[in-house]
């Protein structure tokens, strides 16, 4: 469903991404790994429309989407989380989820002012969907708290729930396990697998936690210094000499 061909991104003199290709099929978890500064987040930024790539193509469901504005990309059904959590910290947890459903709501101002039946129905539906996902990630009891007051692990889960209420086809997670304790990482592991199995979402995952990556990925792409280094199943990657060298050299 997603195909990235020969993507490159240049910042001034720095070629942060150089000739990266990857593809994601329906109901698949594909990981991007690589040392710090390899250009993983930059690939995400290109895919989600924050950057206009300097070269290459991005095809989503057969249509070229490189350079499409970010908000339109997410409306196509590709949403992302951020390496550093980006919640609306002064809004309540449930409101974070309502903002995400903006385009499912009746945004006609007159309808809102008059409180038409359609407006109320959709507002209620959005609340129900929010409640469902809060329950799903275990935050229902905290629904009316300010999002900024949540613990770090809870914020991470809320960010994923916030993506899910938009009913995406493809979810891009940028280091979702960063800063989580082992128990939370395990929960996250199950959540991501369940997103794929139960909700038919494809996932692109950037992650440094190798056990998580090896455990849940269907395929893995390795990037080093902006260039693709290897790709294949977790088994193949584990045994790839180049990858071992890059990681050992890094460590």
């Amino acid at each position, binding site marked *: 469903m997603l195909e990235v061909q020969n993507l490159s991104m240049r910042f001034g003199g720095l070629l942060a991404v150089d000739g990266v290709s990857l593809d994601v099929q329906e109901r698949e978890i594909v990981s991007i790994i690589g040392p710090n500064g390899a250009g993983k987040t930059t690939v995400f930024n290109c895919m989600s429309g924050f950057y206009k790539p300097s070269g290459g193509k991005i095809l989503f469901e057969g249509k070229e989407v490189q350079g499409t504005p970010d908000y339109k990309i997410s409306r196509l059904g590709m*949403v992302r989380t951020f390496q550093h959590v*980006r919640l609306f910290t002064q809004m309540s947890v449930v*409101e974070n989820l309502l903002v995400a459903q*903006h385009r499912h709501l009746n945004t006609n101002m007159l309808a809102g002012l008059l409180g038409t039946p359609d407006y109320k129905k959709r507002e209620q539906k959005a609340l129900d969907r929010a409640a469902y996902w809060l329950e799903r990630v275990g935050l229902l009891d905290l629904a009316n708290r300010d999002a900024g007051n949540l613990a770090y692990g809870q914020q991470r889960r809320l960010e994923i729930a916030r993506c899910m209420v938009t009913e995406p086809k493809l979810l891009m997670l940028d280091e979702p396990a960063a800063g989580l304790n082992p128990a939370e990482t395990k929960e996250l592991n199950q959540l991501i697998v369940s997103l794929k199995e139960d909700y038919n979402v494809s996932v692109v995952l950037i992650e440094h936690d190798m056990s998580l990556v090896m455990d849940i990925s269907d395929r893995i792409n390795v990037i080093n210094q902006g260039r693709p280094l290897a790709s294949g199943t977790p088994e193949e990657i584990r045994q790839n000499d180049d990858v071992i060298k890059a990681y050992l050299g890094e460590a």
Partner: protein
Amino acid sequence: MAANNFRHALFCAVVTLIISIPILGLNLEAKGINIILTGAKTSTYVAIVLAAVAVFVFQAYRDSIMGLLGKLPNFNPLADKEPMEQSKRVKLESWILTGIVVLALFWPFVVSRGSVDLATLVLIYVMLALGLNVVVGLAGLLDLGYVAFYAVGAYTFALLSQYTGISFWMALPIGALLAGLTGMILGFPVLRLRGDYLAIVTLGFGEIIRILLNNWTTLTGGPNGIGGIPEPTLFGMEFGRRVKEEGNTSFHETFGIAYSGEHKVIFLYLIALVLAVITALIIRRFMRMPVGRAWEALREDEIAARSLGLSRTAVKLSAFTIGAFFAGFAGTVFASKQGFISPESFVFLESAIILAIVVLGGMGSQLGVILAAIAVTILPELAREFSEYRMLIFGAAMVLMMVWRPQGLLPMRRIHITLNKQE
């Protein structure tokens, strides 16, 4: 650190001298047909030097002075309290607002005509500030040219009444819609700008509109303005001594009471009150609607908001347009109240005052904005003797405000939608 402070203080003192000596120390005097330059009295020079010394001392010890200022007890005892529980707070705020409105309803019948007139002005400022609050407080867009939309509303009514003899009630929606439309057209190209840039461009727009009104003499009458703007009527009843418009009746004759100039003033006041209440209610409602949440989301984290499918331009434009709409509303009432308008009424200072009300009130909070509008409009009237120093006091108040309570008198806490437990 200390050396740095010293150098900075010295610099400020020298700047003070450089500015004050020519302005205060040198006078131009007319002698016959010539104008000659004379020095001022010695005492003036002494005062200038003293002022420079004061500036030096303040700047040198600025950090400790400002620190002391910050430690002063809070003027607003409510400010540091734990935020009240939302349901309680909402209830309290509604009660206070209802109380204010009820008081405001009876008030004009017991006070003088001048006070009612002033109160009408306060209400116009309340409308303006509530509207600007949407733009600045809720959507986080610094708009320094807000008065332009106020002008559009006022001039729409003035021109339409001059050329087509339209009534107040017809002009009210037209003026507001036209102002909203202007907001949309002006906003579209500039809303991608951020912070300071947006502020500068909107400042420019405000001036452009004023200069246009000033110079398009054939249409707007230029600096002479437009007069003869009709007052509102009540179901076709006029409040003047004699009926001006064919087909209308007069209020005092219909009810068989003696004519009194006060009827008109009170009626205008009541209209302004109703419109201000409507404005407040509509904006309150907006805050709970998807669009209100989108404003806040975009203000809090634009990148996250965009990643969730919110179009920055559309959301910001909606705030800009709605703000402009209510400015047009207020403009129409203003034109009707004055009966005469000229570009004088729509200078930058007006934008600044409205913005000050929003900032003082605590960006985003309606009750705060209403209280601040009352304070900012009425205090200068009470202190008429000091009117020369009005801007000075105003500036000082703003500086103090920023030191003590940067979040405003009553900082906003938006009403959150709560999720009730299911089952």
